């Protein structure tokens, strides 16, 4: 038995030894793998990295045509045209500089271009192509083709150029595309390999970029021993980007742009010698001509002036569909799709009236008297006044040790709320604002969409400011004062809004039931769920609507001269002081707007909707330094509403 046990132990030890032996062998074989990987990934890594780059070069990516942007009636707003692009691959040339001089001799390049290409070549792997010139003409193509034997390392590549057939009409909405930037390449290294790719830099082109860009194709290039491509095998065809339809109607847009720019002046012929003379003398006029402006006006004083600066937005009060949004001055997005010269860029970027700014969403303005509806609604809702409550206006309101003036120096006499809106009595609103308090006013304003992002889809939108006591504490570090409530009552002071927010406010007032939101993409209209309820008492709203109607319909209304015949318009004027009139000026009597420097004149505002009985469109108009809301903004709003409503009949 002992012998047996000893034997068992011996066999057991034998098995353990053999297991360890097998395990040891496994470790040895494992170390072979470790050594092999060390050799591949550490010792020979550099040479394999080169081979992998060569592979990338032989594997070309093909740019997909960009998706189109269309208007509500499927008219082209942004599309593509096919162009030929001359591309050089530095790895395939012996002397890049010499080659560029050769090409320069054939088609003419600027020194700027040559330096740019050499600079790019220094900063990227030499197997990546560099665009020498895009948009080659037929003539350039044939000249280059004849001499292709001496042009080693260049190739012609079919590419797409972005075109905006509507030119300046819609530049702030569509935005523009241009060549990829360094920061974009840093985020996505693949972009570097897409020679000639253009990406959206502003507007919808930017926010919808990924969807518009489509899916790049992959092409394998077989090369012969000298590195010349012999065949292209398509692994994946490029897929065109998605088309996007907008709610914009280009006809209404076109009219709105024209009407806004015209203001109350008269258009003159650019070719007239007196006009040319004026342009030569006047730097402000020249700045407009330099950004492609062709419209020059003659104002009431018979002076030649540039078109008006400002913003218009008109939207459907039921769906929120924006049918037109104009921002003046504008720029031509086609400039960016080609090669923008330094001069053209300078003209745009340094222009005193900032044509690159989309004023509809990013222009910040005091709403002025257009804010009075919010204050009136807040006061009625809070119950601090009724629609019968009257105050007497003597031209100023004494509060503390300070007088707050009404625009009507002689005073409005005793007015109720509706009359105060209609005649835009400031004193009435100073008092009810004080009674209501800034927090309730702010709450109503937010519900109306003021100080709230519309998220309409265009990048760069500004929030504006809709202050209350907490805001002041957080942002200025001081306590809100009652005097600040007083001036907030007439939409001045801290309050800042954008034209699109004012349009949303007007649409909500006209709609009365739903918190309508601004929409720019047609898909959103088709698929959107219903808007949230507005939750404002209908009698309060009815009173606001009647008051807005009386602005146009009553004999003393500030917009009484601009009734929209056949439809009936409701609205509110606003005139925002930009520069306080000095005592000396007041005494000397130079207070007529048109006599002051453009920069010192008041902003003119109007918000409104029509038809009054069956509302369809809401509009907001801001003319920067346009004078008064009633004389400048109201007629523009009336005419654009009329144009839009007439088109419904067609």
């Amino acid at each position, binding site marked *: 038995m002992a012998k*047996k046990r000893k*034997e*068992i132990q011996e*066999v*057991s030890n*034998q*098995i*353990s030894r*053999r*297991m*360890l032996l*097998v*395990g040891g062998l*496994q*470790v040895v*074989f*494992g170390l*072979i*793998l*470790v050594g*092999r*990987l*060390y050799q*591949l*990934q*550490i010792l*020979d*890594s550099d*040479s*394999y*990295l080169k*081979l*992998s*780059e060569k*592979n*990338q070069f032989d*594997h070309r990516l093909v740019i997909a045509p960009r998706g189109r942007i269309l208007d509500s009636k499927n008219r082209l707003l942004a599309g593509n045209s096919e162009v030929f692009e001359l591309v050089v691959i530095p790895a395939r040339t012996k002397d890049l500089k010499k080659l560029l001089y050769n090409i320069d001799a054939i088609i003419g390049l600027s020194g700027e271009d040559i330096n740019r290409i050499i600079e790019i070549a220094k900063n990227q792997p030499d197997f990546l192509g560099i665009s020498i010139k895009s948009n080659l003409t037929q003539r350039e193509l044939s000249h280059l083709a004849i001499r292709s034997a001496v042009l080693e390392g260049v190739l012609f590549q079919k590419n797409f150029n972005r075109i905006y057939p509507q030119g300046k009409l819609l530049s702030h909405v569509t935005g523009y595309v241009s060549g990829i930037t360094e920061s974009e390449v840093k985020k996505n*290294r693949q972009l570097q390999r897409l020679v000639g790719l253009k990406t959206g830099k502003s507007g919808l082109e930017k926010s919808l970029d990924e969807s518009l860009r489509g899916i790049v194709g*992959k092409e394998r290039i077989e090369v012969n021993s000298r590195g010349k491509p012999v065949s292209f095998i398509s*692994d994946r065809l490029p897929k065109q980007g998605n088309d996007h339809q907008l709610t914009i109607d280009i006809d209404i847009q076109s009219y709105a742009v024209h009407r806004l720019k015209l203001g109350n002046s008269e258009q003159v012929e650019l070719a007239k010698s007196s006009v040319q003379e004026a342009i030569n003398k006047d730097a402000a006029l020249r700045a407009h001509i330099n950004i492609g402006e062709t419209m020059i006006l003659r104002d009431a004083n018979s002076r030649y002036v540039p078109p008006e600066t400002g913003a218009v937005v008109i939207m459907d009060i039921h769906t929120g569909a924006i049918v037109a949004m104009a921002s003046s001055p504008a720029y031509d997005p086609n400039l960016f799709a080609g090669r923008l010269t330094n001069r053209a860029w300078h003209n745009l970027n340094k222009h005193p009236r900032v044509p690159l700014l989309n004023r509809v969403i990013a222009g910040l303005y005091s709403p002025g008297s257009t804010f009075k509806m919010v204050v009136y609604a807040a006061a009625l809702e809070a119950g601090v006044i009724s629609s019968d409550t009257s105050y007497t206006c003597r031209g100023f309101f004494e509060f503390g040790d300070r007088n707050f003036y009404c625009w009507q120096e002689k005073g409005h006499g005793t007015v109720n709320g509706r009359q105060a809106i209609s005649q835009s009595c400031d004193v009435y609103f100073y008092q009810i604002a004080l009674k209501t308090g800034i927090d309730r006013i702010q709450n109503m304003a937010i519900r109306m969409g003021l100080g709230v992002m519309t998220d309409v889809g265009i990048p760069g939108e500004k929030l504006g400011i809709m202050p209350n006591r907490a805001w002041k504490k957080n942002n200025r570090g001081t306590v809100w004062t009652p005097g600040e409530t007083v001036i907030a009552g007439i939409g001045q002071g801290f309050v800042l809004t954008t034209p699109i927010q004012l349009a949303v406010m007007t649409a909500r007032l006209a709609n009365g039931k739903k918190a309508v939101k601004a929409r720019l993409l047609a898909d959103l209209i088709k698929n959107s769920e219903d808007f949230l309820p507005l939750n404002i008492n209908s009698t309060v709203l009815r009173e606001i609507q009647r008051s807005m109607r009386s602005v146009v319909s009553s004999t003393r209304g500030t917009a009484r001269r601009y009734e929209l015949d056949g439809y009936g318009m409701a609205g509110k004027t606003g005139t925002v002081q930009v520069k306080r009139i000095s005592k000396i000026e007041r005494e000397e009597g130079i207070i007529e707007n048109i006599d002051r420097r453009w920069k010192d004149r008041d902003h003119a505002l109007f918000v409104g909707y029509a038809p009054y009985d069956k509302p369809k469109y809401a509009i907001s108009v801001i003319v920067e330094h346009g004078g008064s809301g009633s004389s400048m903004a109201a007629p523009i709003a009336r005419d654009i509403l009329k144009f839009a409503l007439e088109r419904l009949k067609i």
Partner: protein
Amino acid sequence: MNWTSKILAIPWLMITGMLILVIIGTMALYSASDGVWTSSVQQHLLRSAIGFLLASFIAFIPINWIFRASFIMWAFIVCLLTVIPFIGVGAGATRWINLGFMNFQPSEPAKIAVILFLARYLSLRTFDQIDKLIIYLPAVFIVAIPTLLVLRQPDLGTGLMIFVGGIAVIFVSGVPKRYVFLGIGTFAASIPIIWGQLYDYQKARLLTFLNPEKDVLGAGWQITQSKIALGSGGLFGKGYLQGSQSQLDYLPEKQTDFVFTLIGEEFGFVGSMTIIFIYFLIILSITGIGLRAKNRFTRLVASGLAMVVFLYVFINIAMVTGVLPVVGAPLPLISYGGTAMLTTFLILGICINLSLNIVKEDIEIS
């Protein structure tokens, strides 16, 4: 065994290692699908979950059932392998049986069946018997029959794994040294015969392996591109989803046999070492179960199973690094594909079961 010692006996290291590998595999498949969450990525996770369930089921079967069922399993699989040329499916090679819901590859469980049956046969030999040459004749048959059937499919990689796994069990069981040398001599002498039995494409692969650069666009293409991908990864790799070789489709079979290359390209030498390290921890913990066990059956089975996992890893990585010819072998738990994963979870289940029974004597098991 009380509950505490049972819980402690479970090979947690092995389970953790496998879990990490499954996660790495999911990440690699996501990268291989161009960074899109495709159904194959989902499938991979789903199959792993089923695998863990299967393993926990096997873990708690009485061990003597496994012992007794090993012959029936072996015989059944040999039958399947015999009839597969007539009823099987597959392009080029007939390896699969269509079960309706999945394609089943009997050569995969064959690896385990051979080991279990061999371990049973050898652990039943008395100590007087192990010196006698005659008792190793049946053992050689247990290994050789399925090996030859799989080689005829043809499937060189799997055939080799069944063979080496079986030989490892026989070797560990305590064959006297003189028989070991006899075996090696016989094998060496039969190489020319085996060469004659190989198919042309198998020969071509072996020849390509010896000189891959000669045929860069043909059979050597895969291995050349795989080496470029691994080599260009360098120490830290090109970054997740940034492997240009893989993302540009230069890498063939990047979801299956060449998934290690993708990881090596994107995570570099550090990444490849991590994978190898985890696999060796798993192999080590299987061997550890064998070393601690009191019964011969467990020791032999553990040796065999450790060898199977080792072979999977070695053949695959050796293949993608150009150390071995391209034989078509997956990297279990990471490669997309169900059968190798199933085998690995089967192995896990058996290992847990063995580890819960290491104190038992052979008598208690049979």
